[in-house]
């Protein structure tokens, strides 16, 4: 079966909520049913076929073409299957995702992979603020799964993150890993100011020495046995993180945030 493909006809002026177009909600629907689904856009409702030309049948494999930065909530609470997006996406990509795979061949907006529970999200471009974070007011961000960003990430990566792995090949903005409860964030590029701010537990694995808050304390240089195992788990990814040359086990360890419970760590490659 060919992938169910939605090709955007024209760019609507208002943002569009694409949350109905996930594999589990489309499974079993006929092409006419899918065409008749309504999407929220501003105060209007737009039929799917008004916005997209639809081709293919396989609801486990969804492709969105000509996507742009106002298509929000793509892959919301995805529980199965695969969504591939050609172009940029809006905010809330993979919000609360439970399983499956999302690949974006473009940039993502705010709150990508936010409150994600399981599965794999790959963003081949840049991503906005609050990657893998909690929604405003919520106390728990990403709870599992893996996010790979090939470009740069915005501010507040992994805010309130609880479990899972975020891999960033480029740079991360300010407050990377802020208020983290646990989990792992790895950044190959540079990080902004206040890295690890109010971090409780969890690991920030950095290739470059960050600007840390004064409430992080130096714990010295160490060889950590879990690092090669962590890198080994990235080996299947199409990423610089999979490169055997990227593997290291020698790090400088900074503990903090001592203004919080202080069980977090920032590991900087030596």
């Amino acid at each position, binding site marked *: 079966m060919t992938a169910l493909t939605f090709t955007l006809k024209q760019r609507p002026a208002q943002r569009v909520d694409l949350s109905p177009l996930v594999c589990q909600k489309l499974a079993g629907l006929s092409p006419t049913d899918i065409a008749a689904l309504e999407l929220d856009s501003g105060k209007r409702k737009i039929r799917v076929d008004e916005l997209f030309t639809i081709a293919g049948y396989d609801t486990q494999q969804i492709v969105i073409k000509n996507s742009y930065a106002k298509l929000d909530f793509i892959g919301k609470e995805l529980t199965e299957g695969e969504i591939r997006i050609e172009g940029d996406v809006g905010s809330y990509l993979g919000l609360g995702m439970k399983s499956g795979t999302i690949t974006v061949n473009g940039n993502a907006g705010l709150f990508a992979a936010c409150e994600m529970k399981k599965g794999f999200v790959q963003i081949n471009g840049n991503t906005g603020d609050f990657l893998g974070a909690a929604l405003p007011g919520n106390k728990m961000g990403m709870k*599992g799964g893996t996010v790979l960003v090939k470009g740069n990430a915005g501010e507040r990566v992994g805010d309130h993150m609880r*479990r899972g792995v975020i891999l960033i090949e480029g740079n991360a903005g300010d407050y990377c890993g802020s208020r983290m409860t*646990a989990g*792992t964030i790895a950044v190959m590029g540079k990080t902004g100011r206040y890295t690890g701010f109010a971090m409780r*537990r969890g*690991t920030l694995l950095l290739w470059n020495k960050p600007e840390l808050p004064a409430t992080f304390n130096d714990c010295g240089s*160490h*060889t*950590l*046995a*879990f690092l*090669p*195992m*962590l890198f*080994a*788990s990235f080996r299947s990814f199409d990423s610089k993180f999979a490169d055997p040359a990227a593997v290291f086990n020698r790090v400088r360890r900074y503990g903090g945030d001592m203004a919080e419970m202080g*069980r977090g*760590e920032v590991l900087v490659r030596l």
Partner: protein
Amino acid sequence: MMIINGVTIDKTFAEAFPMKATRAIITAQNEKWAMISAQAMTGFATSVIACGCEAGIERVLDPSETPDGRPGVSVMIFAMGGKGLAKQLETRAGQCVLTSPTSALFAGIESDKPIPLGKNLRYFGDGFQISKVIGGKRYWRVPVMDGEFLTEATTGQVDAVGGGNFLVLAESQPQALAACEAAIEEMRKIPNVIMPFPGGVVRSGSKVGSKYKALGASTNDAFCPTLKGITKTDLSPEIESVMEIVIDGLTKEDIDKAMRVGIQAVCDLGAENGIKRISAGNYGGKLGPFHFHLQEIMA
């Protein structure tokens, strides 16, 4: 009657019991220290009668076979029940692996019944322990004085078979021991089995019951060479020494294989090296559901 290289194979069988088993992988900076830790962990674990479990080193692992890419040793522990197994695993891991310099501890077997490996040892970290889920498996990093103790949270528990055995009857003690050493060397090459007694060999085989009410088992007088004249003996006059090899394995087939190569190694030495007979220990076939018929195994 079956005779191999002058060695008579008795028409009898070894009787074995269902047990619960687990496997763990110990790694360290080098093989020497992985082995030291493994030896400590599998120490005092010859028989469930008084040790609580039977444990042994299965084999040395190449760095390419271990989760963290360091030299390692795989150990197996067998117990009569799942609870006892879990308790033995935890106390042994805590006292013998956690304490051992540079060690790390990983699951060595998968099953749908996980039992705690480092899951509770983490509390040694006094709140400084760190959990990492890597590739779907949970690991604990416990800060210790030499750095960090890395351990997988759980390992698997599987149904297994314990108590496979055979007896080597020889004309002298040195000849019996030499034959058993040859057998153990071959049997250690078989995966999924351990020979839990010292060096794999037991010289004090037992029978069920005793004249003393407090004891459930006592010396197997029918195979004691010094009692040939005064008890209902199983030994012919020329036998001067008997030694036993006990095998625990994950399946009956694993024990079959180990017994076959072990008995073959003994028979290869043959009558010219003083080996006269191979026999086996059983309880009349009423107690254990697994029967290893020597002649069938060697057929």
